[in-house]
């Protein structure tokens, strides 16, 4: 029982991609999450066609409540259309979320693979650094870095990505610790395969399933962090983001609830969507959970 079955073999056993989908489909919350994510992606991709106006266009119709002709979700203090802001904001959140989670996953895989495969002082050192990154409050550090270096989109992605890898690194490390003593890795070593090939070609594909689960949860966290920075006034100044909209809404909470409700709802839904997809993937790829259900 203790012999771990590589994820690829597991997927094959239940019938490849179709089998995986059959497993995933059984978790209604996961499917709901996926639906939310799909809608988010569609809105982000088709934002220019969906949005009634440019999100930056001001008008004399300031602070109009929802239902005002031409402004379904109302307008803000400068007369900008809230609905258009929410639609364009989906782009910012999605780009930052995906790119930052991707950055974090790549760093986490590299750090975790090296630490877990080689062990010894490399492991010791890398785990200390990982611990340090877990201890330092991400939001505070991100805030300072963005305040120092500027809050452009690329900076936001890099900062959030560079601060979000520890969980992936720990996961990958523990998987590599397990796999490096398995016969198939020994075999690869005996036939003289180079370390980097063993790491990336032999082991990595077998440990990717849980990494993908963490990555989808990372997307949710990255969206949340970007929104938090935006709320602190540190979003990309050239883009309309959900966090930034909530920043301006803060001063108008008492008189214009719609400025606050809709962007916040959008953030919550997007984060929820990716969290649910992560949960669903976790349950669909983990045979222990499947048998228990």
């Amino acid at each position, binding site marked *: 029982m203790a012999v771990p079955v590589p994820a690829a073999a597991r997927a094959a056993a239940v019938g490849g991609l179709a089998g995986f989908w059959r497993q995933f489909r059984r978790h209604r*919350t996961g499917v709901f999450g996926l639906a939310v994510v799909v809608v988010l992606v569609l809105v982000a991709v088709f934002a220019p066609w969906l949005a009634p106006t440019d999100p930056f266009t001001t008008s004399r119709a300031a602070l109009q409540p929802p239902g005002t002709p031409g402004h379904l979700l109302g307008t803000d203090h400068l007369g900008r259309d809230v609905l258009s802001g929410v639609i364009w904001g989906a782009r910012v959140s999605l780009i930052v979320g995906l790119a930052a989670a991707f950055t974090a996953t790549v760093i986490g895989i590299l750090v975790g693979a090296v630490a877990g495969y080689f062990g010894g002082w490399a492991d010791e050192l890398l785990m*200390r*650094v990982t*611990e*340090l990154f*877990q*201890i*330092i*409050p*991400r*939001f*505070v*550090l991100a*805030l*300072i*870095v963005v*305040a*120092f*270096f500027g809050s452009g989109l690329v900076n936001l992605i890099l900062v959030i990505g560079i601060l979000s890898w520890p969980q992936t690194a720990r996961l990958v490390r523990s998987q590599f610790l397990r796999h490096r003593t398995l016969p198939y890795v020994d075999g690869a070593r005996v036939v003289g395969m180079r370390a980097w090939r063993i790491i990336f070609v032999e082991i990595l594909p077998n440990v990717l399933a849980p990494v993908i689960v963490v990555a989808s949860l990372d997307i*949710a966290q990255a969206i*949340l962090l970007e*929104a*938090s920075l935006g*709320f*602190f*006034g*540190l979003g990309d100044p050239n883009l309309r983001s959900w966090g930034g909209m*909530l920043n301006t*809404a*803060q001063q108008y*909470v*008492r008189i214009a*609830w719609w400025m*606050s*409700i809709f*962007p*916040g709802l959008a*953030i*919550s*839904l997007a*984060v*929820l969507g990716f*969290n*649910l997809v992560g*949960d669903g993937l976790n349950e669909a790829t983990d045979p222990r959970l499947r048998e228990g259900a």
Partner: protein
Amino acid sequence: MSGARGSKALGAYALERLLNAVPLVLGVIVVNFLLVSLAPGDPVTALIGEYPAPPDYVERVRAQYGLDAALPERLLRYLGSVVRGDLGFSFANRQPVATLVIERLGRTLLLMLTTVVFATAVGIVLGVWAARRPHSAVDRGATGFALAGYSIPEFWLGQILILVFAVGLGWLPAGGFRSIRADYAGWAAVVDQVRHMVLPMLALSFRYMAITTRLTRASLLEVMNADYILASRARGLSERRVLWEHGLRAAALPIITVIGYNFGFIVAGSALVETVFGWPGVGRLMYDSIFTRDYPVLLGILLLVSVSVILVNLLTDVAYALFDPRVRY
């Protein structure tokens, strides 16, 4: 194991954890130093902020940190002054950074500790309810709440709470630390303070409550089939007692761990919530410092908050060892 031996071993374990924390604290200081050194432009800006400072102070900072010296020497000097408790001077607030941050830290801790206690208590109750009948309506409700609570940003929740309870219903104040105009004393002052704390605490609690609910439910479901639980059922203990006494004992450990692990997240959350409610703690100070470009304050907050996270983790490690005799120390 005798009590005396146990406590001695625990002391040794605590010391070991403390020694482990030293390189982490050093690491935090080095990160801070790197931020100062890598900041675009003159490092003096990072050390003083963009608030106009007297030229002789600028010169003093230059000399103190040996800004013309090589990097390793600068790091040593920086370490030296941090160890002496010198985190620089905030010109926007006309106060040494250490004094300023520590004063604000008290108010933030007040908010955070109440939140942790409240959220943990509610989270445990919800988790136990959910685990009592898995897949029931109550369970679905609690699980759904946990998922939502984990996804809603605290600062938005704060705005909603203000909308509903302050603007709409007018039950509670929309922000601030205490009523400025009224001059309450004694009991009335306490009530006034609590009234100001309810909404920020609720906003901050949600995420934490969600985590605790989920965790309590999961660990209860895991142990409820264990042999000793079966044994207590067989002995005729009421289901209620089995659940609360035995089940909860098992759930206590993961909950302690999660308190330590998530402490950093509450710090971040409290920064955001303080900004929404105008609660004059560290978070609000951070928000203000970004706009006054008061960099030494930001760096001081990063340092002190990181060190407190390390301390809390240390405490939870020791608490964990106290609770669970199986932990080898």
